[in-house]
């Protein structure tokens, strides 16, 4: 018990180093494509680490995460589009939003907070459900958010592309936010809330007998988780600048779930490793798709290969390594075991 802070420190230090290394690698590579990939990676890390906060500690799979991301992205976008642009991009927008614009950084926070509020309101009664019912309701939450985003044309431009979001996300910004997300996840995991929630994950009845309130613990985790998803959505919105409801649907859900499954949902390290692993694999396969396409070797369009590989990898992982690459120990604990426990 006594070295929790200590372990947090090693973990956080490790990822600080890793992030700096990635940053240095980017400067070394110096290409725009690489910078785009790395920025995306950092955003995905926020997203997956956010999912880990809920899923890893509660043990419940959530399909709703990308829904919270979309709230963050749209919310942040709406408040940050310049006033002149708004009348063009969203002519039917309510007057009071129409005339206000904030700095994108503030808007990203607004997006995160708004996503957290929506999650808080929607999910409190759902937190007592377990197993299949819990997963299906989380899926239903995704559907509800998605269809509201599609339907609420005045604010979201409906199913059409939402455009005019100012470009504000740089690699540095994404990295800083990503690092903050990692710190939050570690602090949460080893906090009283995190410990109790993990106790309910392992044995709900026993945990409740020592005073854990499963519903509120899960609820709190969802709120933190949705906040991070909203932040990730805002960052992504200010990076890509135009998107549509389709950008936040089953494909993306599949992607984050594959990251957390491959990495291991029980550890923050696993979530980050999953994001890293899948991003590298994804970009590599994309590159292969392109090479094949341009080599004229095969005459038809080569899309979908990436997802096929990803789904096979996921099934293989669930069969052979169901708890992912980092099933129980965080990187800090692994390092400690290797280097310090010898004596």
């Amino acid at each position: 018990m006594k070295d929790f802070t200590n372990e947090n420190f090693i973990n956080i230090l490790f990822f600080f180093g890793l992030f700096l290394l990635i940053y240095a690698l980017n400067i070394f590579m110096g290409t725009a494509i690489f910078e785009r990939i790395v920025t995306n990676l950092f955003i995905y890390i926020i997203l997956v680490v956010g999912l880990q906060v809920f899923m890893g500690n509660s043990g419940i799979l959530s399909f709703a995460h990308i829904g919270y991301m979309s709230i963050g992205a749209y919310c942040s976008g709406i408040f940050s589009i310049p006033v002149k642009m708004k009348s063009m991009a969203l002519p039917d927008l309510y007057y009071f939003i129409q005339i206000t614009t904030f700095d994108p950084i503030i808007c990203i926070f607004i997006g995160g907070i708004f996503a957290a509020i929506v999650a808080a309101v929607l999910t409190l009664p759902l937190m007592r459900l377990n197993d299949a019912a819990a997963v299906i309701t989380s899926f239903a939450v995704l559907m509800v958010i998605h269809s509201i985003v599609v339907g609420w044309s005045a604010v979201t431009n409906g199913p059409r592309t939402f455009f005019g979001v100012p470009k504000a996300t740089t690699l540095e910004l994404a990295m800083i936010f990503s690092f903050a997300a990692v710190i939050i996840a570690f602090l949460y995991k080893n906090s009283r809330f995190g410990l109790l929630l993990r106790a309910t994950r392992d044995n709900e009845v026993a945990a409740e007998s020592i005073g854990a309130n499963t519903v509120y613990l899960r609820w709190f985790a969802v709120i933190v988780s949705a906040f991070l998803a909203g932040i990730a959505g805002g960052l992504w919105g200010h990076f890509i600048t135009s998107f549509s409801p389709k950008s936040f649907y089953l494909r993306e859900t599949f992607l984050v779930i594959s990251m957390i499954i491959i990495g291991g949902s029980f550890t923050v390290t696993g979530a980050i490793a999953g994001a890293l692993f899948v991003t590298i694999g994804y970009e590599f396969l994309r590159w292969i798709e392109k090479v094949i396409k341009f080599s004229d070797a095969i005459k038809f369009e080569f899309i979908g290969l990436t997802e096929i590989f990803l789904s096979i990898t996921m099934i293989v992982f669930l069969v052979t390594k169901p708890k992912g690459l980092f099933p129980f120990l965080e990187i800090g604990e692994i390092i400690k075991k290797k280097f310090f426990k010898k004596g």
Partner: protein
Amino acid sequence: MMLQFIVDVLSLGSMYALFALGLVLVYGILKLVNFAYGELILVIGYSIFLLKGSPFPWFFMSFIAIIMCIFTSIATDYVAFRPVREKSVTAVLITSFAFATLLQNAALLLISAKPKNVPMPSFLSDSVQFLGVITPVRNLISIFVAVVCLFIFFQFMKRSLLGLAMRASATNFNMARMLGIPANLVITTAFALSGLLAGIAGTLWMSKISMVFPGIGLEPLLIAFIATVIGGMRSIQGAVLGGFILAFIDMSFNYLLPQDILKFRDAFTFSFVILILLIRPEGLIRGPATGART
């Protein structure tokens, strides 16, 4: 007007009921949700599409398509269910989700992202008029096919030994096995029947929209989900009832709601699903008394 509404609800509901029944069959036995269920419709659509140039009559093509559907359903068991069945509910949800993604992207990769036309006999779209109701032939055929299928299905579950074994397994799988009922036979039968029902419903679905694209499975999957949640996840009668209730809700929305609120239909239906799961998690019709996962 009233009669028109009833015919519309019945024809839509008969399709929904078959979809829901196929999903609940597997859930009933294994207490596990098959996320790849919607992809059976994809298989139906592309099978008929790929057979388009063949000299076979249409009925034979759809027959082969349904067979393909049954095979895919059984394959789902072997790929997504069997390897992880013992591990956790979540694992199966994810593997079946992954299998669904796999099939969709295979269609994307090997065929095309664009919708493809699925041939349908032209008489299906002819409209008929009776008692002041105007409706395409396919709607009446949907009702007829569903009634026949449901009748045969429930007779099978009631009269045949295998049907009884299925019902017993849905109540208490371990006990059924202790009576010598082979687990694998029951599970394979459940997946095969699930594929058959989805195949028939999928053919009816195709006759309505006449096209197929990689993402086609989502809507039927959602329909089956909602219908089973409404009717009761563990009850086969409940699934059928849920299908008709969902069709009634959908049609009422279509008839009553103005266009700009209709856009939020899905939000309403899914909120409804969440509500039902909260208030009455066992659905309108309670399933067999025990439902422990095995």
